[in-house]
C-alpha cells in the first residue's frame, strides 16, 4: 500500500510538470489556433536559462523561477513575432498556412535544440541549487524538490486562472482566443494580445523546466520526451481546455508511475501513450473537452 502511495505521489508531481507544459500547449492552441511543436524546447530552454540565472545571481528559488519565466516568456514572444506571426496571420487551423505552422514548429524545435547545444554543449549539467535534507511525511521520504513542484504548480495554476478571469488583459486573451475578428471590433489590440498569450504559455513551460531541473540533469534533449507526453496530456484532458491540461498531466504522470512501478520500468514511456489511445477510443474529445467547431 505504501508503495502505491509513493508511486502516486511521484506520479502526481511529474504529472504537474507535464501539466504545466500541456497548459502552455492548450493555451497556445486555444488562443492562436496553432499546435506548437517546439514547446518541449521552450521547456528545455527554461531549464537552461534557469540554470544560468541560478549560477550568476544565486537568488532564492522562487525568484529564480519568476525571472526565468519572464525571460523565457520574452524569448517566446520574439519567436512568435519573428517566425510564427506570418503563418498565423495567413490563417490557422486547416489552411495551408496552418499546416505550414506545424512544420515550422518542428523546425523551431530542431533549431532550439541545436542552439542550446551551441551555447551550452551536449553534456548533462546539474542544476546549481541545493534544497537540504529530504522531508518526511508519514512513512514517506521525499526530496524537497517535490514540495517545490507541488507548491509552485498550485500557485501558477491559480495565478493563471485569476489572470484570465479577473484582469482586463485576461479578458482580452479569452476574447481573442474565441474569435480574433470580433475581438478586434471590440477595440482589443489583437496582435499584442496574441504575443502576450504566447509569452504566458512559454513562461509556464519554463517554470516546469526549472522545477524539474534540480531532480534531473539539465540537458539539450530533455524537451523531446516531455513534449510528446505533454501533448498526450493535453489531448487526454481535452485539447485547448486549460483545466483539462492539468488533469491530463496528472493522469499521464500517475499512469506512467504506476505502470513503471507495477508492470515494468523498462518501457516507462509506453504507459502514457496507452492511456492516450484508450482515452481517444472512448472519448475522442478528451475528458473535459467539448465538441469544438472550426473557429471563424
Amino acid at each position: 500500500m505504501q508503495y502505491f502511495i509513493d508511486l502516486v505521489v511521484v506520479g502526481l508531481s511529474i504529472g504537474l510538470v507535464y501539466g504545466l507544459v500541456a497548459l502552455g500547449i492548450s493555451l497556445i492552441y486555444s488562443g492562436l489556433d496553432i499546435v506548437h511543436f517546439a514547446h518541449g524546447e521552450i521547456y528545455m530552454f527554461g531549464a537552461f536559462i534557469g540554470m544560468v540565472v541560478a549560477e550568476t545571481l544565486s537568488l532564492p528559488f522562487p525568484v529564480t523561477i519568476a525571472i526565468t519565466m519572464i525571460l523565457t516568456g520574452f524569448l517566446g514572444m520574439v519567436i512568435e513575432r519573428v517566425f510564427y506571426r506570418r503563418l498565423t496571420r495567413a490563417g490557422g487551423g486547416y489552411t495551408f498556412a496552418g499546416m505550414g505552422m506545424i512544420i515550422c514548429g518542428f523546425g523551431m524545435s530542431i533549431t532550439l535544440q541545436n542552439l542550446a547545444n551551441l551555447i551550452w554543449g551536449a553534456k548533462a549539467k546539474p542544476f546549481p541549487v541545493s534544497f537540504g535534507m529530504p522531508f518526511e511525511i508519514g512513512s514517506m521520504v521525499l526530496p524537497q524538490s517535490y514540495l517545490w513542484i507541488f507548491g509552485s504548480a498550485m500557485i501558477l495554476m491559480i495565478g493563471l486562472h485569476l489572470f484570465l478571469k479577473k484582469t482586463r488583459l485576461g479578458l482580452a486573451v479569452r476574447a481573442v482566443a474565441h474569435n480574433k475578428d470580433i475581438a478586434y471590433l471590440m477595440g482589443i489590440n489583437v496582435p499584442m494580445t496574441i504575443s502576450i498569450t504566447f509569452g504566458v504559455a512559454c513562461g509556464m513551460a519554463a517554470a516546469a523546466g526549472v522545477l524539474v531541473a534540480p531532480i534531473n540533469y539539465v540537458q539539450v534533449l530533455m524537451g523531446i520526451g516531455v513534449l510528446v507526453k505533454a501533448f498526450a496530456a493535453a489531448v487526454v484532458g481535452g485539447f485547448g481546455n486549460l483545466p483539462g491540461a492539468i488533469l491530463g498531466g496528472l493522469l499521464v504522470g500517475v499512469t506512467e508511475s504506476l505502470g513503471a512501478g507495477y508492470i515494468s520500468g523498462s518501457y516507462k514511456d509506453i504507459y502514457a501513450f496507452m492511456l492516450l489511445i484508450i482515452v481517444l477510443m472512448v472519448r475522442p474529445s478528451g475528458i473535459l473537452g467539448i465538441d469544438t467547431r472550426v473557429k471563424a
Partner: protein
Amino acid sequence: MLEINNLEAGYGSVQILNGVTLNVAKTQIVALLGGNGTGKSTILKAISGLIKPTAGTITFNGERIDGKRPNQIVRRGLAQVTQSKEAYPGMTVEENLRVGGFVNNNRASIRRNLERVYDHFPILKERRQQLSGTLSGGQLQMLCIGRGLMSEPKMMLLDEPSAALAPQIVLDIFRIISRICREGMTLLIVEQNVRMALLLAQYGCVLKDGVIHIEGPAEDLIHDDNVRLSYLGGTVADRHGGQNLQQ
C-alpha cells in the same frame, strides 16, 4: 461624420464593391440595404478595418480610416455592433459587455457605461451574471448592441440586427435603437429587412452589383416602385398601419 468615396474592395481576386459612395451625417440614421451577397458585410468589414479596401477612401470625423487596424478605429469612436450570434457564449453577460468596453481603462467610466446599457436593456441587468449562451435571440442582440455602446462611440454600425428574430422582438429592439439615436448617436444600419430598416432610418441606400443603386430619404424609398417591387412586395404603410417607431 462618415464619408465613403468610390470604395472598392473584395476578397483576393473576387471584387465585391465596385465604387461605393455613401455619406452619413452627424446624428443621422442611414440604412444600407441589399439582398444576399451584394456586399453589405464587405462594406462593414472595410469600414471597421477588418479588410483593406483596394481603392477609394473612408473618412470618419475628417480623418482617413481606410487601412487602419480595427482596434484603432474603435478608439476613434466608431463601433460595430455584431450580429447576435457573435456574442461570446462562454462569458457572462457582464463579461461580454466589459469586452465591449475594452478601450476604456477607467473603472468609473466602465461602471457608468454598464449602468447606461442596463438602463436601456433592463433584462441584461437581470441576467448580468449568467452565461450569454443562455440568452434568447432577442436578448443576445440587445447584448451585442450594449457591447457596442460600451466603447462610448460617436457612431455605430449595425450588422443586420433583425437577423433571425421574430418581428415583434425586432420592433422592440428598433424602438430602443431609436431612443439611443435621439440621445445623439449616428447610425449606419445594414439590413436585409427593408421594411423595418426604412421605418427606423431617415435615409436609405440600396446596394446592388457592388454600387449604390438607389438612394434617397426613407419615406421616398418606401414608396419607390423599384424598391417596393424588388424588396417589399407591397408598401410598408399597408402592412403596419402607419406604425411610427419614433416614439
